């Protein structure tokens, strides 16, 4: 998912405090003190034992704004991590990046790709025990498609005509589109587009996933337990605890002192410092996860292609890989990644070329260019990337300052930053839809390239076997005229205790979605 600023649903709730009686703080305080006095010395209550199979304790980043609503906007990795265990979509991408059917078993289009028929899997139950039917799918799609809900996945399905979504029978749904769209099957694997029980969202969302919520405290932790009525391969774990920590350092400390089994976020340095430590192993997911520097085309001089290309020539990709990402990355070539079915085209690798960059800058009249690159440092490597870039740029006399801001600050001026650091963990097609076409929230560089847009339109109409060729042409345009400096594909690092077995790396960087065979040995 591309980064987008809108903040969601809670608005409605926060705006109407009367609905939830706010507890009285003072009452709590005095009460708590009294209770504490009474309980002092009391042992904690007996915890109910797990249903067997052990519990996996996952350390995740603190997200005070999280909720159980899988459609909320501006979701953090923590919320998506949990959603992937609670909810399922019609399809998903397996750990090698291939599409597989989940709640749907088939999707067929009419001749011009303007209407799709979805066949649903029979025998699927929601975690409350009720049956999963076409009505739930219709309700979910309609909810997603309603602009008032400002859901984060809206961009992917905006071609769906909400009035033309209907249940054909209990397990068949027909979806009419406002415009023909060929790669319909590809979009449903997104974690932002799961199916939930009709009417349950947003207050108490119910999904069909392998786990259900046992306990949830926003910004603190969530306890999930195995859903024994799950239709697919049941996980061996009895439960999953997702415990939130304010920093990666804290996650690492918790892992070291055996308070969690796996840290879902780790800097390359942390990963490296764990190397060779007894009892700790590293789950290293190599994929097409990009960290990139966006150049805003509405701000001079970044509207000038020569300036953008010059900056792309300045960065030392090898150094970014080795120093900013500690080697846990591979060099990228200023375009987004491909897919397993469609590997990226063979474009000559761009290398650091100071002289050429200087020439281009001189041509553009920007020889003494100076600007600052803004980052919120949300993900490991962001600040480091900015610093390496700054150092590299200095070699051509370009002064780059690093501006570290808070997350809300970055989001509140989203689309206005001249130069900023962004990330993209999702496959190419949704990337194009959400972040590379003009007018999309994810397109914070405001890139509007007619040739690229034309190719995208072709892509949306092309049958499956023609899509790869088109995508390759699009990659080439990105490489030659794009607005991001994409120096590296970054590995997702998750150090874990070595008694956790069965983890698999995932090319899309979310290996914790695949817990079926995971066990925790005591």
């Amino acid at each position, binding site marked *: 998912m591309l980064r987008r600023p809108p903040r969601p649903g809670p608005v409605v709730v926060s705006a109407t405090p009367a609905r939830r009686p706010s507890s009285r703080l003072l009452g709590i305080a005095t009460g708590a003190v009294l209770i504490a006095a009474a309980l002092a010395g009391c042992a904690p209550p007996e915890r109910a034992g797990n249903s067997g199979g052990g519990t996996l304790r996952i350390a995740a980043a603190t997200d005070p704004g999280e909720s159980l609503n899988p459609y909320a906007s501006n979701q953090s990795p923590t919320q998506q991590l949990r959603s992937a265990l609670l909810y399922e979509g019609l399809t998903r991408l397996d750990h090698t990046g291939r599409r597989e059917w989940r709640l749907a078993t088939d999707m067929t289009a009419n001749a011009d790709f303007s209407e799709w028929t979805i066949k649903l899997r029979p025998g699927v139950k929601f975690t409350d025990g009720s049956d999963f039917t076409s009505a739930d799918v219709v309700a979910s799609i309609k909810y997603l498609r309603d602009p008032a809900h400002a859901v984060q996945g809206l961009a992917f399905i905006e071609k769906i005509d909400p009035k033309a979504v209907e249940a054909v029978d209990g397990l068949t749904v027909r979806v009419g589109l406002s415009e023909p769209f060929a790669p319909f099957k590809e979009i449903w694997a997104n974690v932002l587009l799961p199916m939930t029980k009709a009417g349950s969202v947003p207050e108490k969302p119910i999904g069909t996933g392998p786990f259900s919520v046992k306990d949830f405290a926003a910004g603190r932790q969530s306890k999930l337990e195995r859903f024994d009525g799950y239709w697919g391969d049941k996980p061996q774990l009895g439960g999953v605890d997702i415990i939130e920590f304010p920093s990666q350092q804290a996650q690492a400390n918790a892992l070291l002192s055996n308070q969690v089994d796996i840290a879902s976020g780790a800097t390359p*340095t942390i990963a490296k410092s764990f190397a060779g430590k007894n009892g700790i192993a590293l789950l290293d997911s190599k994929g097409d996860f990009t960290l990139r520097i966006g150049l805003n085309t509405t701000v001079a001089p970044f509207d000038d292609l020569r300036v953008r290309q010059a900056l792309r020539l300045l960065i030392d990709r090898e150094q970014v890989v080795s120093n900013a990402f500690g080697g846990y990355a591979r060099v990228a070539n200023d375009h987004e990644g491909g897919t397993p079915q469609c590997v990226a085209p063979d474009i000559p690798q761009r290398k650091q070329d100071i002289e050429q960059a200087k020439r281009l800058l001189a041509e553009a009249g920007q020889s003494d260019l100076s600007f600052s690159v803004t980052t919120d440092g949300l993900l490991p490597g962001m600040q480091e990337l900015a610093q390496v870039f700054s150092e590299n740029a200095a070699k051509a006399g370009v002064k780059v300052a690093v501006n570290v801001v808070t997350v809300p600050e970055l989001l509140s001026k989203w689309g206005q930053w001249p130069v900023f650091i962004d990330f993209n963990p999702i496959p190419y097609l949704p990337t194009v839809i959400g972040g590379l076409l003009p007018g999309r929230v994810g397109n914070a560089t405001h890139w509007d390239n007619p040739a690229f847009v034309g190719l995208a339109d072709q892509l949306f109409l092309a049958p499956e076997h023609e899509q790869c060729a088109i995508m390759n042409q699009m990659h080439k345009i990105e490489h030659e005229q794009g607005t991001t400096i994409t120096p590296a594909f970054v590995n997702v690092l998750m150090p874990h205790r070595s008694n956790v077995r069965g983890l698999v790396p995932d090319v899309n960087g979310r290996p914790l979605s695949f817990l079926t065979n995971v066990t925790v040995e005591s």
Partner: protein
Amino acid sequence: MTTDQTAGLPPSENPVIGGPAPLDTVAAPLDTGTAAGGRSNLSVLSRAVRTGQARLGLALLAAVGLLVVLGPFFAPYAPDAIIGQPLEGPGGKFLLGTDILGRDVLSRLLHGGLNLSWMAILAAGLGVFLGCLVGLTAAYKGGAVDALLMRAMDVLLSFPEIIFVLLFVSMLGRSTLLTAVLVGVAFVPGVSRVMRGAALPVIGSEYVLWAKANGLPPKQILVREVLPGVTSPLMVETGMRLVWAVSAIASLSYLGFGIAPPAADWGLMVGENQDGLSIAPLPVLAPIVLILMMALGGNLVAESVARTVGRTEGKR
């Protein structure tokens, strides 16, 4: 993130303790009690300097001071030049190894004290100056002015300093100057209370009464008569605030509220490199040691001045 401007000691106020530093007082051993000899402040300083503790403190400060001022000239590399692999061990090309980005730790250390130094000096200076102004004015004017000023100080004081700085930094944006000023302003209530406490007996003293009775202008009385009487607590206060400022600003840099990243800064280095603490301790420990030397040096000097003051002026 959080800061610790507390750095262990209450940066806050000490209504009673007289000065922030613990003072040991030794009663004059003899009933003769007529200690002759000048009482000028210089002599307090010079006597303080003669103690072993103060010498150690001064030596530490001098060492750090030399490092800060001359360091940049001796640094083998530019402080932000990426010249090696990340976290290389010490020895060979890099005397203290490299940091997480592959920059020379020694060069960053040698460049990294300047910002901390000027910020700490500015913060302490500002805090002491404003605090002195408020404290002396309150003590001199008394009555409503005193009550008003001191209650205003109470309001400021109620914000724990770290939160005060965080709040304003997020309101006004991050900059080194702003951070230093904010830390200084956060010191004002504490300093003003100490200075008011120190000034009250001086203002009640008979030579100030004499000046009042003879209608000397208040400004002249404050500057010429009262201020010299409170220089000793002022010196102690300045020293301690300097120590706290070092601690607070280093903490803020560590948390990312101080100096922007590519620049070399000791506090920032601790924050940047702490992920690698277990495999490469030097990039973290070396700046800590320098921060500590700076703060400890200041602390030792301030304490021995405080003690000398306590001993010679019988104040506690």
